[in-house]
């Protein structure tokens, strides 16, 4: 585990050597009179999974949505692959906390929806959708409607939809918060496999410390409102081990404990 | 809605429509629509006449009587249907039929059963208003969380206390919403009833003015009626807001 303290954050926020997929520079966000984010400087290394972690109301989802281009920042800028973000773009795809599946559409149409909006022909987009439906483990459910699926399966649909548009950066907003505990664990394991396989940059928002440590290459801890970077941690966990071994690994447990000690004073 | 940086209240657009009404009326393009200002003057004059006052009292009387029975019967039936599955299965189909049936067709039947008088109008108001009150009360009672009832029981609440202090109060937001919708329907009922009976209250005046092509007074009557309907609905909405705060957090 590498712990990068807040003081050194700016210097170390740029990972040496690695490619940077997303650069966040001096982002501030005001909601009317309320300051949600203050002076966020952050780099997200390409091909890695970075987690934004923090107490509720720290602005982690706001930061993710600014990166997604769904809401504008008050000041500062976000660059993805060197280009400044002005709105949503094809190089980014978003996975929603509440799944945001169209209840009137089948799994197949939901997964292919990003491609449908781009004007891709039906056969072509169904072929692509089919591939990612299989990849997230939903083969055989193509013609089901969202209400016929469990919470975990619905979020797999959301994930497949994000994969289908072949974006470089995947933005996941608390994707497992509406999924029950057992399905969540399985899903986390599957997600790690997909991260390994798809070689994309993942930015992940969660409020679960265990989830953050288990999944992430890098954890950015935000302080309470106004959100600032409090700490950056790189859990150095051997990902080749089995999921159960990781969860029992001393390094994993120590990291969880250390983050908890840091966050504890934010809890009322 | 914002205009030139100012927030314009929603209902302000009604003023725009009033101005349009006035212009159309002044232009004399449509015989049916006299200028709004004339109508407003007529309103002031009308409310001072004995005929209007008598008609208004008759109308109000029928309306209040009908609403009183509708609320009492509606809430009792609703509570019964909400708490007892037998009552629900027996009555549910009829309540659902009558809540959306064209009750205007029943008024002629009421006229021969209850005579060409106020009783018919009272029954019409009752029939228009009661069903939606039953349905909303039932929904409110069924929406009372089980844990709240179990809490009452576990702290030793008697049956009476349980209904009076827990179930009824917990369902109050829905009951009030039902009564508000019932009032809106009741106003329609009183107008339809009086129009069809045609010889009492407001219905008689409507008949009189429209037969004599007295458009100014006709619209004056209509405006008073619409204003009264809106005022009543707003009043109940106001009461509703006082209990609505806990509707969301139950």
């Amino acid at each position, binding site marked *: 585990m590498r712990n990068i303290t807040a003081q050194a954050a700016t210097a170390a926020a740029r990972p040496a050597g690695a490619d940077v997929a997303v650069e966040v520079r001096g982002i501030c966000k005001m909601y009317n009179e309320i300051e949600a984010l203050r002076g966020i400087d952050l780099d997200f290394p390409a091909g890695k999974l970075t987690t934004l972690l923090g107490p509720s109301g720290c602005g982690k989802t706001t930061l993710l949505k600014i990166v997604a281009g769904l809401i504008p920042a008050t000041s500062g800028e976000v660059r993805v692959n060197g280009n400044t973000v002005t709105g949503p773009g094809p190089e980014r795809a978003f996975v929603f906390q509440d799944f945001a599946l169209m209840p009137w559409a089948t799994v197949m149409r939901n997964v292919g929806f990003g491609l449908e909006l781009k004007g891709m022909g039906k056969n072509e987009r169904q072929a692509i959708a089919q591939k990612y439906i299989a990849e997230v483990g939903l083969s055989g459910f193509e013609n089901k409607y969202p209400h016929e699926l469990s919470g975990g399966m619905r979020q797999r649909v959301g994930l497949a939809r994000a994969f289908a548009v072949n974006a470089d950066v995947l933005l996941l907003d608390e994707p497992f918060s509406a999924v029950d505990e057992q399905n969540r664990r399985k899903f986390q394991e599957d997600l790690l496999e997909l991260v390994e396989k798809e070689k994309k940059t993942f930015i992940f928002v969660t409020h679960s410390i265990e989830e953050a440590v288990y999944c992430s290459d890098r954890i950015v801890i935000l302080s309470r409102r106004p959100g600032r970077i409090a700490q950056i941690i790189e859990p150095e966990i051997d990902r080749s081990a089995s999921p159960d071994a990781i969860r029992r690994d001393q390094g994993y447990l120590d990291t969880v404990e250390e983050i908890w000690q840091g966050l504890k004073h934010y809890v009322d | 809605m914002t205009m030139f940086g100012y927030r314009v209240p929603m209902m302000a657009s009604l003023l725009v429509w009033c101005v349009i009404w006035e212009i159309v009326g002044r232009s004399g393009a449509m015989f049916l629509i006299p200028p709004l200002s004339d109508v407003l003057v007529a309103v002031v004059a009308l409310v001072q006449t004995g005929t209007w006052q008598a008609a208004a009292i008759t109308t109000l009387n029928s309306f209040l009587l009908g609403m009183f029975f509708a609320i009492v019967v509606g809430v009792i039936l609703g509570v019964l249907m909400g708490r007892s599955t037998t009552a629900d299965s027996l009555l549910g189909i009829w309540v659902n039929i009558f809540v959306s049936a064209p009750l205007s067709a029943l008024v*002629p039947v009421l006229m021969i059963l209850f005579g060409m008088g106020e009783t018919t109008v009272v029954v019409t108001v009752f029939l228009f208003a009661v069903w939606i009150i039953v349905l909303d009360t039932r929904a409110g009672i069924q929406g009372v969380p089980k844990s709240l009832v179990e809490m009452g029981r576990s702290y030793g609440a008697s049956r009476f206390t349980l209904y009076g202090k827990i179930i009824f109060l917990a369902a109050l937001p829905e009951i009030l919403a039902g009564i508000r919708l019932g009032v809106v329907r009741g*106003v329609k009922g009183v107008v339809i009833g009086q129009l069809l009976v045609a010889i009492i209250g407001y219905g008689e005046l409507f008949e009189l003015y429209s037969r004599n092509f007295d458009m100014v007074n006709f619209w004056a009557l209509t405006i008073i009626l619409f204003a009264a309907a809106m005022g009543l609905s707003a009043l109940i909405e106001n009461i509703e807001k006082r209990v609505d705060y806990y509707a969301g957090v139950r």
Partner: protein
Amino acid sequence: MSFPVQANGSSRAVPPSEASFVWRKLSEHRTALWRTASIGLFFLVWEIAGRIPISFAFPTFLETLRAFVTMTLDGSFVAAYAETLQPLVIGIAISAVIGIGLGIVMGLSRFAEWLAAPVFIVLQAAPMAALIPLITFVYGIGLVSKTLAVIMLALPVIVLNGYKAVRNANPSLVAMCYSFQGNWWQRITKIIIPDASPVIFAGLRLGLAAGFIGVILAELLITPTGIGDLITYHRSVADYPEMYAAVVSIILVSTLTLAALEAFELRVLRPEKRKS
């Protein structure tokens, strides 16, 4: 940890008896049974009340039923409904086109909402029936008047439902469409309108219910034609069973139509409420 359930069943297990089988079959159709019982009970009470009789103008259920059958067979219902349903269908069709269009525009544009919403809120809460004598003046006692009566009563609820449905379209789905770079037109046609369609359709159903009230009112007030004429005529000659049969028939027709529309709504527009 649980033990696997014994598939072959224990020897003590009681085979389902004939009685419990019947009972299970019955409870499967519980709602239908209760409905039949409820309707039967209602007719029984009606019959008894008619036999007492509670009023000289209160026929028994059987008399009414006989009248109902006769009027169905001799074609008087067919002729009456041909006349009654015409203004209703035209009025609802016009209200649907105007109402849904206006509702969508009001849901999308803040200015249109500001300008038009209060008017329809007033019209929906106000007793529009009061204006029916007025339209008789301008348009006489023909089809136009009756159609206008239907539109006046049906339009406000259709507009308001459409407007509310579009305004309250699921913001999460709208954000999803935006994040996948859907344009303005795609956002409206692929997300907002499909999301709003169940509520829009429910508005049509409510509009139809109001339209039934309107058309009957018009036939009773303005011009004795169609089913309104059947009611008025049989009342004037004191044929009470026939009169009651006509009243029952219109309630029946409206209830069945509305129920059919509701079933259609559940089946087609709300897959999430369908039984899987």
